[in-house]
């Protein structure tokens, strides 16, 4: 194929367009550059929010006020949640790796609407900056929790409007990215790439994009209604005016439950790419994985009520939502089984990306099964709004989506920068991260079951041990994180030159040079066979 570095090869990093210097990034409509700009923005905000997480843990080293007062603590977990959810994990993988690799993996030169793509980056930055600004401007940091439950959020004297507006804008950015991806996948696949010859990471982005397009507007209008409630005195959710606080919860979770699948589906897509490559073996059950992605997106739409089991919903709602919550676990189970079967019988090379992918499965299982404990009616009554929930979602978001992200960055790093990082340091950093992670969040399951509520600035003395162990874990975790990041940053310019295909992958991004040229492909490849074809000949099934 005519896609190896030729005479005219210039990588996208060195490419000179109309603009020079920083502007050649800020005004670039190249999907790869936009992906990288998302990456840097996300990392910056991520460190801010991770630091806030650490601050909470320090505060909880001992009962009573230690380094901050209750108001500060409430502000911190709110902004920690808002940044983590709306600024980092929801856009995270789609905007970074999706932008960078979706067009390449389906054999296109760019996304369908490159200008719109750049526009949504700017929207993203606007929203993110507004979110951070809410901390400093006016009446003090918002203190409502990332869920903005009314009536409190309609009454709190803090900068709630900033945070609401930020979330609204970020939602719009997310919608535009999703819209762009759907059209790209529909219209721009390389010749011969039928739907079922498409790799699985694009498939997961496709399912995600539909949720982004169809669920985000609901939270948009909901946030607008809260803004109207605060500024215009319209009483949609205010019981004093006949409004209904539970209606807000419905509307909020109609979006925010599907949103958790916006977070996890692309993460699942990443590990689905990694297992075949490092096993040198086709992915097991391609069709099943495709169907389960779509099933998660579709069924995931109708389980929102499991966040409201104790809110006083009708008996049959509780029944219905609990039932569907259990159903939506099945596609996740199918994926897990297919991943481990992909490794079975392969030629396995335990490089950092695979290491992260395997720990992803482990942590995701713990997160998922504790999710089932939350989805069951009887146990949810006991566990709702305790630290058990906090542990559940940190395991599944950060253990799941976070570790998948780390797997992805170690997997695609050579492609993005054309350099290799140090494997040894990456492995050590993984060890520290993994240990710190479990130490940080596992105790929260236990004290959660014992009845420690979440969003508590202070706690009863019987929870001290768990809280302290957890806080120690936070320090270990953060050091692992710093080591990992340092490894990646240091080798960006100084690492060994990476070949075009360091892991012997077979998806399209490995057929082009590292880093890819501006136009991705000199010649758009024609696809003649199934994806994940490792052997020259494959035995008949």
């Amino acid at each position, binding site marked *: 194929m005519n896609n190896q570095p030729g005479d005219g090869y210039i990588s996208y990093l060195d490419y000179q367009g109309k603009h020079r210097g920083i502007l050649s990034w800020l005004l670039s409509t190249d999907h790869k550059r936009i992906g990288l700009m998302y990456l840097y923005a996300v990392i910056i905000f991520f460190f801010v929010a991770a630091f806030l997480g650490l601050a909470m843990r320090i505060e909880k080293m001992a009962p009573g006020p230690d380094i901050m007062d209750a108001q500060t603590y409430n502000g911190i977990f709110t902004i920690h949640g808002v940044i983590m959810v709306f600024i980092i994990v929801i856009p995270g993988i789609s905007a970074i790796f999706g932008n960078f690799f979706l067009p390449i993996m389906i054999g296109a030169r760019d996304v369908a609407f490159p200008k719109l793509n750049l526009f949504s980056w700017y929207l993203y930055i606007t929203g993110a900056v507004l979110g951070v600004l809410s901390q400093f401007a006016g009446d003090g940091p918002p203190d409502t929790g990332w869920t903005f439950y009314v009536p409190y959020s309609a009454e709190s004297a803090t900068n709630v409007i900033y945070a609401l507006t930020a979330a609204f804008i970020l939602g719009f950015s997310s919608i535009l990215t999703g819209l762009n991806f759907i059209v790209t996948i529909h219209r721009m696949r390389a010749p011969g790439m039928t739907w079922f010859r498409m790799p699985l990471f694009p498939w997961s982005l496709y399912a995600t994009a539909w949720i982004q397009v*169809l669920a985000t507007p609901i939270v948009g209008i909901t946030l607008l209604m809260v803004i109207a409630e605060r500024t215009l005195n319209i009483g949609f959710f205010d019981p004093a005016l006949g409004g209904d606080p*539970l209606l807000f919860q*419905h509307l909020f979770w109609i979006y925010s439950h599907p949103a958790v699948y916006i977070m996890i589906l692309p993460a699942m897509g990443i590990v689905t790419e990694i297992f075949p490559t490092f096993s040198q073996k086709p992915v097991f059950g391609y069709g099943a994985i495709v169907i389960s992605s779509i099933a998660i997106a579709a069924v995931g*739409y*109708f389980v929102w*009520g499991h966040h409201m089991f104790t809110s006083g*919903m*009708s008996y*049959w*709602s509780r029944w219905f939502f609990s039932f569907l919550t259990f159903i939506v676990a099945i596609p996740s189970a199918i994926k897990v089984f297919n991943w481990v079967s992909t490794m079975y019988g392969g030629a396995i090379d335990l490089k950092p990306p695979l290491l992260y992918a395997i720990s992803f499965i482990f942590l995701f299982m713990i997160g998922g099964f504790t999710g089932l404990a939350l989805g069951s009616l009887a146990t949810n009554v006991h566990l709702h709004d305790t630290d058990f929930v906090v542990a559940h979602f940190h395991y599944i978001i950060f253990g799941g989506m976070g570790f998948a992200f780390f797997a992805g960055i170690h997997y695609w790093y050579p492609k993005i920068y054309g350099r290799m990082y140090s494997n040894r340091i990456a492995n050590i950093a993984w060890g520290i991260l993994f240990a710190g992670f479990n130490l940080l969040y596992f105790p929260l399951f236990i004290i959660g079951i014992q009845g420690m509520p979440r969003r508590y600035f202070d706690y009863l003395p019987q929870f001290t041990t768990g809280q302290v162990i957890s806080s120690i874990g936070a320090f270990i975790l953060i050091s692992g994180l710093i080591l990992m990041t340092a490894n990646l940053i240091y080798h960006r310019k100084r690492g060994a030159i990476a070949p075009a295909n360091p892991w012997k992958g077979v998806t399209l991004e490995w057929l082009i040079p590292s880093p890819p040229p501006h136009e991705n492909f000199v010649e758009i490849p024609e696809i003649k066979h199934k994806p994940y074809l490792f052997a020259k000949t494959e035995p008949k099934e």
Partner: protein
Amino acid sequence: MSKSDTHISRYRELALVLLALLFLTLLSVLITELHFGALSVFVALTVASVKVFIVLLYFMHLKFESLLLRLLVGMVFVLYGLIIIVTFIDYFFR
């Protein structure tokens, strides 16, 4: 070229569609004058749905678009209907 690129709606056709829509508007106004009670909501919404259907098909040209687009639009309305129904599982049985 797909069907949608070859089909051009004719003026007369569009004018007739408008007439139908105006007629339905008149109908719904008259019907509410009659006060059917609870039923009138239902009737008004049915008429509105028919109108929306017509707008989608002719003004928005869906009748001549690809099957994919038609399916997607249908799916979106079904999804919205399901959301309403699921929400009302709570409100009806409270």
